[in-house]
């Protein structure tokens, strides 16, 4: 009875608006907390066995087993007191699977939605298909601690929260480079955009690998990396926008700013001076890292954690090679880097399968419990004696293969990225995690991230292609500045202006609140 009353309160609070919610939250937080504490201490004995179905993507070669043959999965169920009926779907087919599942009405009780702007999902939300979970978060101690309003804002639909986001570092983009080449040439790590150019030039001309041959170049570039990394890295460093920003009270895309032109001209100069691979327009995806792994190129843009995982071939080829990175470069507005959205998908809870509020609360308690340190440790290292051993009180993975098969992709069932640091971790990863924290305040968000634009949903990909193509052509010298302006005009005409209006409207709505 008591519980129900509280639920009722919460619902009312959700309806009454954010201000009241905060007040009520601060009032009832104690009650919620003490309740949670009681549960947490009893978590070893599953008093209320939560049983639910859950659908997530996986990205390894195969999903981990979800039966008693997998000790890590069993440990997860024991630690969270939940019985999970997991459907793993290959990452490449995940969005299709979500769409057919939505159409069939046969939804699992919790599912990851990777593309939160997917119009099929937005429509389902508008039809009341999913629980609004925003008001419940504060009932759970761990979730409340986990909750970050900027990220929550990004997944919100019409200002409401319909899912639990899976957090990813915001400050993650940067320049990765050959530290050993810098040392060979007596150069410092890049601090400004000019440094990038100078280092690229030195890497191309000054024989950084000391083999007496002219067989190196400055920076590896790819066609999709240009828009996703390189351009926003440079433009934000120069003081510009991350994709979109506010100029004269209007939402403005970065390619309509002087900073973009400046960055574009710099890349053109680098291309003309052969500091960039000439075929970058024909390269997509991870192929760009091959240039680094072959020992040909000295620099690349990407996620700073790539330094830890993507260059093993290089180390085998050139044992002395060393990759280091910087996140953010100094410019007129200080050190700046483009922010990521801060999440990769969110867990959503369909009303058709999660019938009652009590059911929802039970399921949410699972997501609360996966944030417990012992569960986090399980996701990171697996089971002691099976996947890891303990050295000087610190876990060390002992069976990499088994860990890969049984533990790695269980991580799809968690929400927070590993935040626990262990002395046994390698130096690169330690620095990466440090940077995630240190650089977060310097990350420039894409201000349109939380907004919905019907035009963006309808033709966004197409319009993006316009600009990316024009940028590549400009760098390669196929079009000049007038040609680039023509492309932006075309962009505006074919829906860009409408998109700007829609975004500006959304922006003004938020500002006026």
């Amino acid at each position, binding site marked *: 009875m008591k519980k129900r009353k509280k639920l009722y309160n919460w619902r009312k609070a959700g309806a009454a608006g954010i201000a009241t919610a905060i007040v009520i939250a601060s009032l009832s937080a104690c009650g919620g907390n003490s309740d949670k504490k009681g549960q947490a201490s009893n978590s070893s004995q599953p008093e209320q066995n939560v049983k639910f179905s859950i659908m997530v993507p996986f990205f390894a070669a*195969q999903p981990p087993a979800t039966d008693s043959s997998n000790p890590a999965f069993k440990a997860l169920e024991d630690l969270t007191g939940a019985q999970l009926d997991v459907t*793993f779907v290959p990452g490449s087919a995940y969005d299709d699977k979500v769409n057919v599942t939505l159409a069939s009405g046969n939804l699992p009780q919790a599912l990851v939605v990777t593309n939160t702007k997917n119009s099929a999902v937005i429509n389902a939300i508008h039809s009341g298909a999913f629980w609004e979970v925003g008001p419940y978060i504060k009932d759970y101690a761990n979730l409340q601690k986990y909750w970050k309003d900027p990220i929550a804002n990004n997944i919100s639909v019409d200002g409401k929260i319909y899912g639990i986001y899976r957090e990813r570092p915001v400050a993650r983009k940067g320049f990765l480079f050959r530290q050993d080449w810098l040392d060979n040439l007596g150069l410092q790590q890049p601090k400004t955009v000019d440094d990038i150019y100078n280092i690229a030039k030195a890497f191309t001309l000054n024989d950084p690998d000391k083999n007496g041959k002219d067989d190196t170049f400055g920076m590896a570039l790819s066609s999709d990396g240009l828009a996703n990394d390189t351009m926003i890295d440079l433009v934000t460093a120069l003081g510009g926008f991350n994709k979109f920003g506010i100029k004269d009270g209007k939402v403005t895309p970065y390619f309509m700013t002087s900073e973009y032109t400046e960055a574009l001209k710099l890349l053109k100069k680098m291309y003309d001076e052969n500091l960039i691979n000439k075929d970058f327009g024909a390269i997509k*995806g991870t192929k760009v890292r091959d240039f680094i792994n072959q020992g040909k190129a000295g620099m690349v843009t990407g996620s700073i954690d790539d330094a830890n995982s993507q260059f093993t071939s290089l180390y085998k080829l050139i044992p002395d090679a060393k990759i280091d990175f910087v996140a953010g470069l100094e410019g007129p507005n200080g050190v700046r880097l483009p922010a990521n959205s801060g999440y990769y998908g969110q867990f959503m809870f369909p009303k058709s399968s999660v019938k009652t509020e009590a059911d929802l609360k039970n399921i949410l308690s699972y997501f609360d419990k996966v944030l417990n340190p012992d569960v986090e440790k399980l996701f990171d290292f697996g089971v002691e004696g099976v996947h890891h051993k303990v050295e000087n009180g610190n876990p060390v993975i002992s069976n990499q293969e088994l860990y890969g098969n049984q533990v790695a992709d269980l991580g799809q069932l968690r929400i927070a990225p590993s935040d626990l640091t262990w002395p046994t971790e390698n130096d690169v990863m330690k620095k990466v995690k440090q940077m995630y924290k240190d650089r977060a305040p310097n990350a420039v968000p894409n201000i349109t991230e939380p907004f919905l634009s019907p035009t963006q949903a309808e033709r966004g990909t197409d319009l993006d292609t316009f600009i990316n193509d024009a940028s590549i052509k400009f760098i390669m010298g196929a079009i000049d500045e007038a040609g680039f302006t023509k492309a932006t005009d075309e962009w505006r005409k074919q829906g860009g202006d409408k998109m700007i209006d829609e975004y500006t409207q959304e922006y003004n709505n938020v500002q006026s609140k």
Partner: protein
Amino acid sequence: MQQRSIGSKVFDVTNHTLLLIVGLVTVLPFIYVISGSLVSSQELLTKKIVLFPTRISWDAYQYIFATPIIYRSLLNSMFITVVGTVINLVLTTLMAYPLAKKTLRGRSKLMMLIVFTMLFNGGMIPTYLVVKSMGLLDTYWSLWLPSAISAFNLILLRNFFQQLPESLEESAKIDGCNDLRILYKIVVPLSLPAMATFALFYAVYYWNSYFTAVLYINKSSLWPIQVWLQQIVLLSAGGFSDANALSEVVVPPDSIKYAVIVVAAVPVLLLYPFLQKHFTKGVLLGSVKG
């Protein structure tokens, strides 16, 4: 007489040379793929083309076969392929035979309706809903039934049946054979090259199918091997950039991509010689010198 023989010889030599070139052009990249699966990733990275690895490394195959579940899905694939091919062949033959009869009333209308299904299709979601409403989800029937007859193969098989001399069937009919018996005893044995061809087409279709399995089957223990193989290829092609953060999936090197292709192709390559027997049978009879 003499002249023709010279012309014939010239033709033979040119023909052989031409076919040899064609064979080389197709086989060289495949050798490259095989070698690529056998070299260390460093060698593959630094050298542009490796036709003969300096040192053979089985790492890529070890990676693929490291997990026990791969054997299970290999068995799944074989089961799906064998049963599926049999179902498809039986159903296609059963339908093609009456359609090959020129006297069959409604034949042309039916054919038109069949061709129509090749042009218009409802797409992923409606088909999924039909499969679901028939209760086929999570069973192999969801893979077999919705693709039980390929309109393309049906039309071609009907064409083969039509080219058989009608006199054979007529005499059998006079002997009191019913249609099913004629089909089984006369038509099918006479159409072995065609049957072998469509067996191959269907088998390759089932062997390569991956998306339907992922869509219709939730239990990963029932998946065919192509699901893993596809996942590995996409992984090495960098299909999922954002996902790497959490699970820290290390992108497998290209050598694994190549090993995957070898693993996926070899079972069908092994199947071919058995079927090839039937392709060349007719010609063998004719090549007896006389």
